[in-house]
């Protein structure tokens, strides 16, 4: 009887595993195909009978990308803009989330809701005046305006996420530190950050990824390759001169996506964990 039940259990496990595997492969099929194609020579890309993986793998497409003058520039721009955005977001959101969680003051609920509400602002609505401001202040085609624009979506979500994590933090600890005469900055530095590091990191990574992927602002607020991020860069290259160069497309996609995926995979535990409970275990 027990062995029969055990058999059923194992069988369910195996079926479940195969199900998850199947769903994952199916969902990732486009990415798998793109990854495989990035290593194909021209002849294998432009064929009526495409395969998933190349017969004769080559790095030709990658070499071509790094010989293009624009592409490394786009990568650097994206890296600087996303990094600075994440940095500003972490600092501002840390202070705001602390205040919104651990202090009492009139209008707190209103501010919390306002920050939540800003999440519904459409980028299309914001980009119109941002374009004219940038034009007037001579900031079109600069890092500053793109970082500024990216803050519009990265900061509210980070504040919201961090405030959520902080709610799991025992208020008594903060109160005890206050009684001991710690100011908020000391409390944040010595109590909140050590305990809530995964949640804070997750919020920072989240902002980085959002800024890294940003498309509309970069498309609109840049004029030349000088400050263009990868999104707008790829838009102009791959919908323009290199329109049908699928080797270039898939190789560029791989280069852009791989670092983010690795970063994310390493921190994924903290992001899911950070969303649930502030790691206080």
């Amino acid at each position, binding site marked *: 009887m027990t062995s029969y039940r055990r058999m059923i259990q194992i069988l369910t496990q195996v079926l*479940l*595993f195969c*199900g*998850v*595997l199947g*769903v*994952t492969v199916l*969902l990732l099929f*486009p*990415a798998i195909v*793109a990854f495989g194609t990035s290593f194909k020579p021209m002849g294998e890309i*432009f064929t*009526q*009978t*495409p395969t998933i993986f190349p017969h004769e793998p080559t790095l030709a497409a990658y070499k071509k990308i790094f010989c293009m003058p624009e592409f490394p520039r786009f990568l650097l721009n994206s890296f600087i803009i996303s990094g600075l955005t994440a940095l500003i977001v972490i600092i*501002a*959101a840390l202070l*705001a989330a*602390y*205040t919104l969680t651990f*202090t009492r*003051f009139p209008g707190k609920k209103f*501010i919390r809701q*306002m*920050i*939540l*509400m*800003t999440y*519904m*602002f*459409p*980028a*299309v*609505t914001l980009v*119109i005046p941002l*374009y004219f*401001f940038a034009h007037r202040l001579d900031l079109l085609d600069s890092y500053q305006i793109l970082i*500024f*624009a990216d*803050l519009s979506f990265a900061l509210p979500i980070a504040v919201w996420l961090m405030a959520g994590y902080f709610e799991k933090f025992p208020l008594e600890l903060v109160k005890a530190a206050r009684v001991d005469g710690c100011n*908020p900055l000391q409390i944040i530095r010595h109590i909140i950050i050590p305990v809530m590091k995964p949640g804070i990191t997750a919020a920072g990574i989240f902002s980085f*990824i959002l800024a*890294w*992927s940003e*498309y*509309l602002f970069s498309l609109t607020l840049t004029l030349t390759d000088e400050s263009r991020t*990868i999104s707008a860069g790829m838009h102009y290259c*791959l*919908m323009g001169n290199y329109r049908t160069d699928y080797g270039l*497309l*898939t190789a560029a*996609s791989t280069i*852009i996506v791989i670092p983010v*995926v690795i970063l*994310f995979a390493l921190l*994924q535990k903290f992001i*899911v964990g950070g*969303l*649930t*409970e502030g790691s206080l275990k």
Partner: protein
Amino acid sequence: MQILIDTDSRKRRKAPGLFLLPGALLAPTLIIVFVVLLYPAACTIFFSLTDKTMADTTYSFIGLKNYSNLFSDPKFWMAFQHSIIFTLVAGSLNILLGFGTALLVNRAIPFRGLFRSLLLIPWVMPHIVTGLMFRWLYNDFYGYLNYLLIHAGLIEKPILFLVDRAFVWLAVILPTVWYEYPFVMLMFLAALQSISPDLYRAAKVDGANAFQQFLHITLPCLKQAFLLNGLLQIIFMFKSFNLVWILTQGGPGDRTELLSTLAYRHVFEGFSTGYGSAVATVIFLVLFAVSIVYLASPAIRSEEP
């Protein structure tokens, strides 16, 4: 007496601190929110009441004329209709797929962490990558989709997914769901993990089977998560722009024109900033109304501490 005076003075000393400190700590966030969100949104609403164009720096106030033109423009109503249908269809699919995958990777299976990471990949991919990748997959000569469909015997001639009016919506919604479901999955995973295992243990003791447990524990505990995901999906999908712009730019003709692409086209391609701003304001107001309804509903109030 002495004690009474002491508490009084402490209260007085504390009171201004209670205002000042939150103000100082919130200042960076509030200033940024004002400069990059509230002020630009107000400007767009203001522009929508003017005859501003891309080139002219001088423009005049024309009241609600842009709106009266808008409301008699069939193109606007068509885009509005498209936006609503797109929101409902893509949003529902996102929640379905996100919820399904969350349930799958919440089970105890080997390599669960790896599967979670893998399933999140589409979400970390920049929209431009997703958009260009699907453009290529849809290609009639070298695309995988047509190849697979022809070899499966489902079609005889390749489908021009981005040109064929019958298929273009499918071609836009497919990648949209592809990039958005992991976010929903992440939210549901978080909610699933916050359900106390004691509930399931108690249910097992009471002899409830897996389906009953799902129906009577999992679903009720996820009510909040469904509401939140529902709201977020309405917001994300109604304002979505990137994928449609990369894939079709609203075409063929205006078959996939959304309010967001219509606004962008008027401001940055048609140069009629005032008119485009009016469209952008409509998107904003619709989302504002949705958010107000949600915030005013008792469900969220119970969530507030």
